């Protein structure tokens, strides 16, 4: 049976509004899609110019999250539901997968869907389905 817990719709909507605003700012300023895996991919590839703007984006991302957490006055520790070898494995899967699919939840999920990209619709349906299946297998499968 499905039990809904910790559902925070208002915070979800406001957070989404902020994320969308960030994507719109980037469209206005740079004329491009705001995709985080693409940003990282270009950084590890160490290719092309404009590395400065990528570092600025990363700094903003970290400061935005850290600033909000700091304002709440709560201690910030991240708890994973899986042991560290699986954390490493999931990192590798996310890295390889987003590189192959050329996008993650931001590039395909937010920007791609917003501009009606057929590739993004396919990617989102696939990664949501496989993500749900994975959680089901890990938590309920055995």
């Amino acid at each position, binding site marked *: 049976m499905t039990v809904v817990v910790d559902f925070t719709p208002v915070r979800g909507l406001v957070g989404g509004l902020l*994320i969308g605003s960030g994507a719109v700012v980037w469209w206005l300023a740079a004329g491009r899609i705001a995709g985080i895996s693409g940003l990282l991919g270009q950084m590890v590839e160490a290719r092309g110019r404009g590395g*400065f703007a990528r570092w*600025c984006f990363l700094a903003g991302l*970290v400061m935005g*999250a850290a600033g909000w957490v700091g304002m709440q006055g709560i201690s910030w520790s991240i708890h994973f539901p899986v042991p560290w070898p699986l954390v490493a494995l999931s990192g590798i899967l996310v890295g390889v997968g987003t590189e192959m699919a050329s996008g993650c939840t*931001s590039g395909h999920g937010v920007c791609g869907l917003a501009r009606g990209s057929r590739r993004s619709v*396919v990617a989102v349906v696939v990664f949501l389905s496989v993500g749900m299946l994975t959680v089901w297998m890990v938590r309920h499968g055995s």
Partner: protein
Amino acid sequence: MVAERQNSPGRLGAAAWVSGLLFGWGLALSGMIEPGKVIHFLDVTGRFDPTLACVLLAAVTVTALGYRLAGRQPSGPWFAPDYDLPRNRAVDLRLVAGAALFGAGWGLAGLCPAPALADLASGSYPVILFVASMLAGMKGAQLIGRRRVARDSECRFPA
């Protein structure tokens, strides 16, 4: 790819910072930087938490409106020479397989690239391990992919 405009890296950097700040703030406020909350969204048959759907709905709506209203200015973007959208239209095995691998990793640890980076500020060792593994995975896929298929440009981060 268009050559970068050389005269305004500072302004472009400032815009990138503001954009990143909005992203990070939104991810933190909505709780998407917590792996547990994301896992509960994916846990549709268990303790289901639909918050992520609200985040995505609002983000896509705002972004779509912004893209539609702003459109393409005749003078180009504010601080870059020209608009640069992904050109790849192919729905192929590479896209589907990549999205599937990403989904598996996402479901396993509850992190995707943006929240993982934001979570680096917590200084938690598992987050550092996740990000290092993710970067290694990207690099590995690039080295293999370069030999196989010409890279597409979908979702390339700007700049």
